[in-house]
């Protein structure tokens, strides 16, 4: 079982999470402007790298927040986990606006 470090809740068992696929895939602003091949590429094709893979996870049984994970697809080692930009409540380290989850400071 993987031990995944939720940016908010800390290390938790893999069973608490659900996998959200490769990170950094954005829906095209105007799908009608795309060719079938481009649309298929957006819809179905993923990079599937050997090595570092950036992916999305949701802490489904915990705080229910989405976050990013950098995982090695060979060793399964998780290199880091991070909040997504614009995630609700800002960054756990308080860098994006002073919410101090886990830091114990209040104001």
């Amino acid at each position: 079982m993987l031990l995944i470090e939720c940016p908010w809740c800390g290390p938790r068992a893999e069973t608490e999470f659900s996998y959200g696929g490769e990170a950094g895939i954005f829906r095209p602003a105007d799908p009608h402007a795309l060719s079938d091949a481009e649309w298929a590429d957006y819809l179905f094709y993923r990079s599937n790298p050997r090595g570092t893979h950036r992916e999305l996870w949701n802490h489904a049984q915990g705080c229910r927040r989405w976050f990013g994970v950098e995982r090695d697809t060979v060793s399964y080692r998780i290199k880091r986990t991070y909040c997504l930009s614009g995630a609700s409540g800002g960054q756990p380290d308080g860098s994006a606006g002073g919410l101090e989850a886990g830091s114990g400071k209040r104001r």
Partner: protein
Amino acid sequence: MSESAPPAGIAIRVRSARGFINLRLNPRNRQALEAAERVLGQQAPLSANTFTGGEHNLYWLGPDEWLIATGAQRASELARELAEALKDFHAAVNDVSGGNVELLVSGANASMVLAKGCPLDLHPRAFAPGQCAQTGLGRAAVLLAAVDPSTYAIVVRRSFARYLRRWLENADSAGVPFRAAGKRQQAGYRSSP
């Protein structure tokens, strides 16, 4: 607590007449946070996975989400007051009393019984009174809170409550051994002291 300790048994009790309110607002919006806290009469926990007691219990559910547990009579009135106080802010107040049940599990072996179906490290060193966590217990998703070293509060979906009670009774019964401590890597727990 050693494994050879005689099974003391746990007490499972449904905490009756409880009401629950789900509160969502961005705590970076201090005005909104303070407006809510004025109505509640107590501070909302901003540290992840902690709860505060007082007139109500306020559980941290997420960086912009809390569960308020209070008396059933008080809940709907409190939800109205909160909604009124927060009407000018980007916030959500939902009375979720109907969907949740609070169980109290107590006994010297309570943490070991819970550990049979919970991936968290429930040792008081890692999960001390005042901490809470949303996690899995058996096959149910629960909010687990350490009230004192031998008492846990569990908030669970009403439709899972009967199952969870049976699961707890089964886990507490003889012939279902405790897992040997230290043999598996347990998920840790993060909260500020």
